[in-house]
Each structure stands twice: as structure tokens, then as C-alpha cells.
């Protein structure tokens, strides 16, 4: 099986091919139709990745699924005609010259912590494609699944052996849909631990019977399945073996209490709010326990109809969760070492359609970065008077992801091979925008 931790590094390509992929990478199989063309990227000389002197230790990645309307959130246009603005007012914020929509009153007080990127632009205008591109920096292809950032982070930045070992998973996804690319072509164990409802914590982490019996049963299980495992050398068969080891370690771990939100006082619970806010609160607790990557989803942004009924409710959840998270991380002194990302697959049309909704608009949209060494109260890029097109400093999704990876101290140019021996890197060909860093 290919070990994604093993990368091309300094190994010369020719030697690498000559010594045989099996031995060099511990491959368990070589695809029958391996083609040299698949190695195109590897012909390029090894490029040094830019080094971030003060990388963030954690990333909290808040994903607004369905396509968050930029006009009605972080790219308001107060002077725009109401036929496109939809009578949404905007607010001045704690950052000079940056306004947010009236639906984000709490965030208005936190914008001095954030860099708002108003100039994202993409051509992926369908959900599956846009979501995938934002999560992986690659286009959705039928032939391969690319890993999402949380998986990359584990592969490129393994746990520090000097730190005390934690049984907590290093990649957690709260309330994510089944479309998440997860570990992609990496081993399934790099994929995120899924938390369905943050209020209920990690489901089924405690065994109802005796742990001694359980370990006996699992030993017996291993004995009885030796033959099956030997016969079937499939990646997924092996993945389950790893999962059991991790699952048992987690069940025995003292760190499990991190998932118990009831340990927070009522005031904190109220401050974050329920639903998305619970997810943000769990993210903070996980980050305190040094979990490197936590992703929290908030769905319902696909406002093709009734945009102005649906957005205030969504935005309210976002506002409360995100503002509380930033403030709380700041108060705890964690904001410097934690990068908070707000991302979505695309924006929505300035034009309001016949159903009082807004349709998909990948040409211009907005994401947000906060903490983790990025500038506070900063705006990057600009859209035109109707927020339809980017007119200043356009940023591709891959560049945005490269910036996030750079913030987390990941080597953005490092090439890692999939099992089909195709070369990939964390943000594809994206380049970090270092201007965003303080």
C-alpha cells in the first residue's frame, strides 16, 4: 500500500523509477496500465515551498454549503439599486472601510480580526463541482478522488513525536454531507471523523458491555479473519483493520470528554447558539486539545427561491457561531495559532430571479480568513458596483487554498503521489497570497 507520508522529496525521478515503485513506496500493487504520461508533474524540478515563519497550529474550516450569497453577507453594496440589493441594509464594522450586511451584526464587531477576500472567482457553477474544487483545489474527475485539506494536513504535517500522543482523531468533520471528499486517494484513516450532531458528541464511543470481553472478542475476530485479510489485499479491507485499532484506542481515551459540550457553562452555550454554534463550540474545544483540523458545515445557502426569507435565518446562525468563535479564541489567546476559514462553493447572482431568489454565481464571491497570522481588519480584492465581477486582485480557489495551506505551515509545492502514481499537491497549482499575513 502506498504511504502518502512518503513523498518524492529529494529522490531523483529516474532512480525512483529504476529502483521500482514497489520497494521505494511499499506499493502493494502497480496499476496494470501505468503510463508515463501520468507522471507529467514529476518532470518539473523540485520547487521549494515558501516557508511561513509562524504557522498556525490549527485550522477551523467553516463551510457554507449550497453557495453563500456574497451580496447579502460580506460584500454588501449600499449604493446598489434595490432591485438587485433586495433592500438589505449594511453596517459599518470594527474595521475601517469594511461593511457587512445587516444580517451580521455580531460579526460587524469582530471584523478587526478578519481578512475578507471579496475577489474569489471560479468557473465551477454546479454544487458538486464547486464544492469539490473548494475542498480539494482540483476539478471533479471521475477517475480519482482528491483529498480534502484536513487529510493533506495530516499527511504533510504529521503529529509532532515530541508532543504527548493523543488518541483524538486529527481531522474532524461536523455536520458534513456525504459528498465530502474526505481522505481522497490517501488511506481512509486520514479522512475526517464524522460528527453528525455536535450536541450528541461522538456517538457510541462507550461500550455497554465489559471492556475485557470486548478485547477478547476483537482478538477472536482477528484470529478468525486472518485468512480473509490474507486473501483480499484490497485497500479498503486493510483500512478497516486500521480503523478498529484507532476506534479502540479512542474508546479508552481520557480525551473523549472533549466531545461533551455539556461541560461548558450555560452562558457559553447561549453565546454560541445551537446548531451551527454548537459545531463552532466543539471546534474550539477540539482545538484546545490540539486537534489540527476541524471542519464545520452550515447548509441551506442554495437560495434559488425566497432568498430574503432564507438568508437572514442562515446568516443569523453564521453570525452568532462565527462571531462567538472569534471572540472566544481571542479571549483564550488561541486566535494567533488558529486559522479560522469561512468558505463556500460560489456566490449568488446579484440579479434576483422570478422566485425572489438568487442563482449560482461563481464569477465573484467572498470568503473570509481570521486569526492564524493573517491581517485583521483587512480587505483583499474588490468587485464591481453590483458585485458581479472581480475588478481588483482576483483570487482563484486554488490560490485561496494555497494561502490557507501556507498559513498552516504546509509545504504547498510538495508533490505526493497517488496510488496510480499521479503527482498532486495540497492546493494544486495555487500560490499563497502572502500579502494577507501580518
Amino acid at each position, binding site marked *: 500500500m502506498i504511504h502518502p507520508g512518503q513523498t518524492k522529496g529529494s529522490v531523483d525521478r529516474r532512480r525512483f523509477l529504476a529502483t521500482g515503485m514497489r520497494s521505494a513506496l511499499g506499493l502493494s*500493487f502497480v*496499476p*496494470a*496500465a*501505468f*503510463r508515463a504520461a501520468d507522471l507529467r508533474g514529476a518532470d518539473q524540478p523540485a520547487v521549494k515551498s515558501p516557508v511561513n515563519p509562524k504557522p498556525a497550529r490549527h485550522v477551523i474550516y467553516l463551510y457554507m454549503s449550497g453557495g453563500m450569497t456574497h451580496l447579502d453577507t460580506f460584500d454588501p453594496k449600499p449604493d446598489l439599486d434595490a432591485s438587485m440589493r433586495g433592500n438589505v441594509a449594511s453596517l459599518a464594522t470594527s474595521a475601517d472601510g469594511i461593511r457587512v450586511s445587516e444580517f451580521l451584526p455580531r460579526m460587524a464587531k469582530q471584523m478587526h480580526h478578519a481578512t475578507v477576500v471579496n475577489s474569489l472567482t471560479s*468557473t465551477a*457553477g*454546479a454544487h*458538486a463541482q464547486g464544492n469539490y474544487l473548494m475542498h480539494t483545489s482540483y476539478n471533479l474527475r*471521475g*477517475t*480519482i478522488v482528491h483529498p480534502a485539506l484536513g487529510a493533506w494536513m495530516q499527511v504533510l504535517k504529521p503529529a509532532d513525536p515530541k508532543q504527548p500522543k493523543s488518541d483524538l*482523531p486529527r481531522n474532524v468533520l461536523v455536520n458534513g*454531507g*456525504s*459528498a465530502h471528499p474526505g481522505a481522497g486517494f490517501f488511506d481512509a484513516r486520514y479522512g475526517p471523523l*464524522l460528527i*453528525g*450532531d455536535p450536541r*450528541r458528541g*461522538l*456517538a*457510541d*464511543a*462507550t*461500550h*455497554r458491555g465489559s471492556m475485557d*470481553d*470486548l478485547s*477478547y*472478542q*476483537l482478538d*477472536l*475476530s482477528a*484470529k*478468525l*479473519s486472518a*485468512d*480473509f485479510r490474507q*486473501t*483480499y*489485499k*484490497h485497500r*479498503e*479491507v486493510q*483500512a*478497516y*483493520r*486500521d*480503523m478498529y485499532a*484507532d*476506534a*479502540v484506542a*479512542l474508546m479508552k481515551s481520557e480525551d473523549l470528554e472533549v466531545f461533551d459540550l455539556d461541560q461548558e457553562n450555560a452562558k457559553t452555550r447561549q453565546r454560541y447558539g445551537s446548531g451551527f454554534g454548537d459545531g463552532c463550540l466543539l471546534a474550539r474545544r477540539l482545538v484546545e486539545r490540539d486537534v489540527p483540523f476541524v471542519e464545520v458545515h452550515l447548509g441551506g445557502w442554495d437560495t*434559488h427561491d425566497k432568498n430574503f426569507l432564507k438568508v437572514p435565518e442562515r446568516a443569523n446562525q453564521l453570525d452568532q457561531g462565527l462571531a462567538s468563535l472569534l471572540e472566544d479564541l481571542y479571549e483564550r489567546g488561541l486566535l494567533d495559532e488558529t486559522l479560522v476559514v469561512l468558505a463556500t462553493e460560489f456566490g449568488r447572482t446579484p*440579479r434576483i430571479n422570478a422566485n425572489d431568489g438568487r442563482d*449560482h454565481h461563481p464569477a465573484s464571491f467572498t470568503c473570509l480568513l481570521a486569526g492564524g497570522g493573517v491581517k485583521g481588519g483587512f480587505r483583499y480584492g474588490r468587485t464591481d458596483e453590483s458585485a458581479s465581477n472581480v475588478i481588483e486582485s482576483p483570487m482563484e480557489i486554488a490560490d485561496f487554498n494555497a494561502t490557507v495551506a501556507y498559513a498552516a505551515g504546509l509545504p504547498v509545492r510538495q508533490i505526493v503521489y497517488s*496510488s*496510480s502514481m499521479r503527482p498532486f499537491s495540497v492546493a494544486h497549482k495555487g500560490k499563497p497570497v502572502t500579502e494577507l499575513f501580518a
Partner: protein
Amino acid sequence: MRFSIPFILALILLPIAHAGDGSPSRKIDSFIAELHAKKGVTANPLATDEVFLKRIYLEVAGRLPSASEARSFLDSDRPLKREQLVDQLLASDDYSHNFFNYWADILRVTVKRKGSGGGYGEFAGYLMAALRENRPYDQMVREMVAAQGLIAENGAAVYTKRDFAMPLDNLASTVRVFLGVRLECAQCHDDPFGEWTQQDFYKMAAYSYGFKNVSSRSKGSIGRVHKRLIDNHLDPKTGRRVGEVNALDRTWKAMVAPWSSGHTTGTRFNGGQLRLPHDYQYDDAKPESPVKPKTIFGEAPEIDHPKKRIDRYAEWMTAPENPTFTRVIVNRLWERVFGVRLHAISAAEKIDDMSLDSESLHPELFEFLVGQMRTHRYDLRKFLGILYKSKLYQRAANTEDTPPDIREYAFPGPVLKRASAEQIWDSLVSLINPRPNDGDWVTRMGLEVRLGALNEYHHAISNWDEDLLYDAILRIRKDMKAEQVLIDARIAQITKDHQGSKRELGEKLRRLKKAEEFVGQRGFVERHVYQPALAAAGPRARFSVRLPDGRGELEIREEWKTLGSKPLPAFMNHLNQIRNEFIQQEFKRHEISRSNDQREYRRYRGSATRVYRAADLDLPAPPGHFMRKFGQADRQLIENSTREASLIQPLALMNERTVDLLRSRFSPLSLALARTAAMEDKIETIYLSLLARRPTAEEWSILKQESQQRGEGFAQDLVAALLNTGEFLFVR
């Protein structure tokens, strides 16, 4: 083992297919043998009966065989037992459950069974019924793509209705699922990688554009009466709505209230014309100009009338001569059975991306299968039977991953795969739930009776004389006025007698007023509209609803019909009687005679019969449900399920409460174990129940040693151990 009546009938009526020489299955094998010879590939050895048994149950019935089903197959020495089992399972209700889950993932079926609105259980009901009666695939597709009418009467109408605000997305999905063409990129711009332009997309979309939402309120005579009521009571001087108009409007609404919920909305195709988007950027047409329909390939259908356009389009799509329609379903089912698509560039590609330049791994075989699909008139069970009876399917599974590039792949045998979330779940359900195929039959039957009654009333009123209906509503209004006098008197009385704060009084009066008006209206509607309309409609066709597994239909009596949201007590009593019969049968079968045991069994049964099979649950199952952990699709996107491993899956198998029910002494598995005293027999039953085989010689030596050390508790240990093996989770 219980057989349903349709199932036994099917067994008798189905010619047991001998996959003898010259049969389509043998033909597949000779094509595949050619492919092996050409590529220098050795076929995998034939799978053992045990491996075949587990595979065919999981893949056709969607669950593991019970221990007794496993024994009866393994111990049989009939020469054609594999073929016979294929026929038997394809004819079973289990097939419908399993393939329902398969299609629900493709068609994004969502169902919320409790709570109000947006449930779309009608679509699931449509799909399940179509699978149960093995409706031809081309007919099903036509029914969905061109469905019109109220969803209460035609569940297929949900197919377009659920994408209502997004007709273009609906078109993109339709073309992708049934024609294997990815048009979605061309929705917004010419596809730089594919062969389609935005103009192509819009021309194609022009066929299915023009669906409108309808609700029965505004339909036909009922709607006309409403209009007359309003028009005749407007203020004669100003032409404005006055108080009386609003009161009549409320009265009319009270009459239609029982069917004005989600159940009676639907769609109608009005043949509307599609226009290009305002930002259309190419030179071949102006933005917002009307689009003339044209199909992306094949011979475009003649459109006799705009309103018939959707039907002609659906006929074009599903015609045997359509260039991709038949190929897509053949490719889809082939991949489902053998794990790798036959017509493809890559194994990892989605099945519905049949770019026109992709090639078949064996073109002659592919064309042969396309011919078979047409010959058998899109009978999916028959077609699947041909695939399942091939030698290829009966071979051992590949022992390594399928390479991502499959151009050299030669089908040495089926592919190993993890069972789907639904298959794992349904296997557990049949070990936990004493009547796994019944689902929530009490709720289902209650709902069906209500819907049946609603349809009856609605039909009667729609066909009633319009003048009579008009007068009836005026009569309700008149009686309501009289009633109002009584209500006012009571209000005055209560106000007089009230002691306490003003706020309390206000609250009290508001509630009283609401309740009395509601009851009054309901009663008057019943007297003045429903009863005379029903009487005028004459003797009605009786309707019946499906009883739980294997018990046929129950004819609905007059006194059970209700328009209320809850079934009537008389009907519930009848259902309780049926339930009691089930319990008595189970007492007898499992020799549960002591009253303490019976009480405990009833308690177990109360929880266990609520562990429904996948197709009987909300779809998708709520977040955090066992199946979601194992990758059940969220139904947002086409084929969005996954079979990837994740940490929460072992946690679920070790610790979930549902899995814990298995350990109860009254679970079907435990009851089967209790029937035998010897540990060896118990071990065998556990192996058969969880892995569909008996232990091997090496396993026996481990098992004997371990069971002696652990004593009686070993049976439970072994259940837990096998549940947590790869062999349990994977289909080999």
C-alpha cells in the same frame, strides 16, 4: 421461513430458467472466455456455494440469508440450485427493498414520514410499487419524466416537482441518469472539455420546460365555484372585497382544507417556451431569445402540440432506437453485478458519464446485452437474472483492487466490495426484527386509508353539480352565522363569569372561539358538502390497502374512513387484532409460554419491530443513523453514497444500541441459538447467520478451544467477533 403469496405465485409462474447451452447467460460466458484468451487472463476459480450464497443474498435480497435459508441452500444437491436461488430471490419482496435503495440513491429519493410537508413519500411509494410489480424500465422512465397530476394520485409527479424552481437542473439530472450524458456544464457555458454547447443544452431543455405547480384547490369545478362566490359577493359599488367575501373565502377553504396540504399539490405541463439566459454570450443567438427544442442526438420527435411536447420527449428518450438510453441501463446493471462497467474508460468514472467516445471493453458482448434488454422489453428482473446466472458471476471475487485504468481489464470474476450501508443495515434488521419486511405498517395503513378517503371525497366533490356545490357553500355560511350567535352568547356568559386577569380571559376566549368555529365548520362541511356529494356520486369502488408481509389486502370499510390526521379507533382496533395474531404465532413458534417471558418478549418486540428496513425509514436516514455512518447518501446529489471506511463504523458495530438488541435473548438470532443445546450447533448457527457459511476446519480447531475456555458466554463472544470481521462487511 415465510413466503408471501405473490412470491409463491411468482415461483410457480416463473419458468425456472435453465441457463443451458445457448442461453443468454452462456453467451455472456463465451464472450468473456474470448476476452480472457485475448488478454491472456486466467479466470478466477468458481466460487464455493457458501461464497455464492452470501453474495447473491446481499446483492439481490439486500440482506444476509437466515441460518435456515443458508442451510437449505448449502445442503441441497439439486444440480441447478444456484439458478433456482437467483430466480427465487429476484421474485421476492426483498428484491424490491434492495433495488429500491439502489434507485433511491440514483433518483435522490427523500422521504420524511412524520411531521408536515415536503415528505414526498408518494415518490418512494411510486418507486416501490413499480419495482414490486416489475414495471418495465422504459415505462418507469416515461412515467417519471412526463408525470403530471396531483402527487397524491401520481407519486411520479414528484420527479419534476421536487426540482420545481430549477427546471434546468432537473433536465441536467434526467439526461445524466437516463442518457448517460453530462450536460450540466453546458447549462452556463459551452463545455470546454465535452462536445456540448450552451445552445445544445437549452435546445434540449426546451422540451421539458413548462411545468407548472398546481393544487387541487384551483382545479376544475371546485376552483370555478370559488371564483363565482368571490365575484358574486364583491361590493357592488366599489367592486372591492368586503367582509362577506372574506367569510365565504374562509368557508370555501374549510371545505378544501383536508386536501390542501402537500398531498394535493402536483404539476401540470403547460408547454411554456424556454428563453436563453439574459447573459447568453455566444454569437449564434441573442440573449433571452426563445429556444426551439432539438434533441442532442438521435432523431428529434415531432411535436404535434406544445402541451404534448413532454410526452413526445419522454417517448424519444425511452425509445429502443435512442442512441444511449438502452446502453446506459445495460452498463449500469452490468457494473452493479460485476463491479466494473463494461462500456467505459475508467472504473472510477461515474456510470452516467458515457461520453460518446468511450469504448466497450467487449463491444460485441455489450451489443448483445443491449439486444437482450430490448428483446426482454426492459424487464429488469429478467435481465439481471441473465447476468446473475452467468458463470462469470459464479466465480470467486478478485483478490486485488481494480486498477483505476481499466482498459486492459478482462473480468476474471466479480469485484470484491463492501456491502452498502443499506445492505449491512437490512442484514442486522433481519437478525433483530421478528417481522423485518413489515416496516411501520400501522402508520402506513393509517395514512393510506386517509389518502384513499381523501381521494374519494375529492373525486365526489369535483364531479358534483357546480350549482349544488355553490348553494351548499352558501348554506354552510348561513349555518355558520347562526352558530356565531350561539358562540357570541357563550362568550358573553364566560366573560360575565370570569374572575381573574384580563389577559387570562382574552386567552380563554380566543381559544374557545377558534375551537368552536373549527368544529362548526367541519360539521357543516360534512353535512352540506361531503355527504350529499358522496351520495350523488353513487356506489363507489371500494378501496383496499396492503396488509403486512404476506397477508394480502385489507378492504376498507365505510366506518374506518376519516379525513382527520389520525386513524379512527375502530380501525386501530382492527390493526391491533392483527398485531396480536402475529404475537401469538411467534409465542407458538418460539415456545414462549410462561407469562413472564411473554411479557418480556412483548417488550423486546416493541423496540425490535421499530427497527425498520432501510426502505421503510426516513430517506435519507437522519444524521447519525447507523446507515449514514456507513455512507448512505444524503440524497443531495445523484449517486452520492459511499462505501469508504471511517472510524465511526467500528464504533457503531461495537457499541450501537440497535446492534445491542442482537444480544437480547429474544432476538431472532438468540431464539435460533436457544433451540440447540450443544455449543457446536450454536457456533454453526452463528456462522450461518452472520457469514452464511459453516466454519472451516482450521476455524473449528480455534473455536473448540476457545469455547471450552470461555464456557456458555462464548456464543455472545462469537456473535460480536464475527460482526466485527471484514468478511461480514464485504461481499466477496
